[in-house]
């Protein structure tokens, strides 16, 4: 018994050391909010189009309608990082050949329209979420946020913040490739 007790401090130090090592890991982002949506079906929502914009509205069933993975982007005209990622998303949608779906979060229709007219409209469908209720369904903490939904309507990836850095673009491509591989098998 006494022999075993001698090792207790060593075990305690090892556990604490492991915890500190985990805490010091530079890849860990302590501010990251874990998403509960991953690997779950896309939440239920049904949004009408933005008044005066050509893109039709967006509801849950639209996401899996094509059987191909789609990218859902939550954006707003009043959100500065959204402006930064807009060009990147437009180019990615064209190069990677995915349907880009939009949720226009807590925006005034006329502001959203002017924003899309100025920067271009890469969205296949845009749902106008004027109350922010669909945003809560998606568990977003702000804009922009981007999701990948696979062909069966399951959320497979979430990104908080603008898709502007190389790293975020690579992550999006990887998530998309995985969703395509998963849907094909």
């Amino acid at each position, binding site marked *: 018994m*006494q022999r075993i*007790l001698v090792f*207790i401090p060593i075990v*305690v130090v090892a556990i604490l050391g492991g915890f500190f090592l985990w805490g010091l890991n530079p890849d860990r982002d302590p*501010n990251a*909010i*874990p*998403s*509960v949506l991953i690997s779950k079906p896309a*939440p239920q929502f049904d949004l009408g189009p933005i008044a005066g914009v050509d893109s039709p509205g967006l509801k849950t069933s639209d996401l899996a309608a094509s059987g191909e993975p789609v990218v859902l982007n939550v954006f707003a005209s009043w959100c500065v990082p959204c402006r930064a990622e807009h060009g990147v998303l437009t180019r990615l949608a064209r190069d990677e050949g995915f349907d880009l779906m939009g949720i226009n979060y*807590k925006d005034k229709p006329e502001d959203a329209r002017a924003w899309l007219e100025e920067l271009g409209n890469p969205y296949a469908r845009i749902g106008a979420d004027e*109350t*922010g*209720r669909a*945003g*809560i*369904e*998606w*568990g*977003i*903490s*702000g804009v922009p946020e981007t999701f990948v939904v696979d062909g069966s309507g399951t959320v497979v990836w979430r990104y908080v913040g603008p898709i502007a850095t190389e790293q975020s673009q690579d992550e999006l491509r990887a998530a998309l490739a995985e969703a395509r591989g998963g849907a094909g098998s």
Partner: protein
Amino acid sequence: MKHLLSLIFVLLAGIALAVEPDEILDDPELEARARAISKDVRCVVCQNEPIDSSNAGVARDLRILIRERLVAGDSDDEVRDFLVEKYGDYVLFKPPFNAKTYALWLAPLALLGLGGLAAATVFSRRRGAADAQAGLSDEEEAIVAELMQRFGQDRQDKDG
């Protein structure tokens, strides 16, 4: 004293401001429940602030949502479950007891147990040492007596 009081009132006013007048329900009982729930719900934007005292847009939306669900007849737990479903356990300041949080809830007890065990061993050992200093046991007295006798005989033999 006067200054301290006014400081307290000023600070309290800041807390009360977050819940805007148009959000407050007419039914004081429901409003009290809404306030109680929102004090334990994390604002997902500001992260360390409850939505009850946060001015963030999402916090306001969640406050209104909580009140809507209460008016619709949800229980407090149903409202909390609804929020957890959207934002995860993370949204609650008081983490629930489930498979993911066993370590969190049980680690203090385990550490207390380990500490208690270590303390018990140390104290029992110290008491053992104290007893030994207080005097010799009967067996030890016998051994000493025997040794003394033998030593005495040795000396006698040498002297003789």
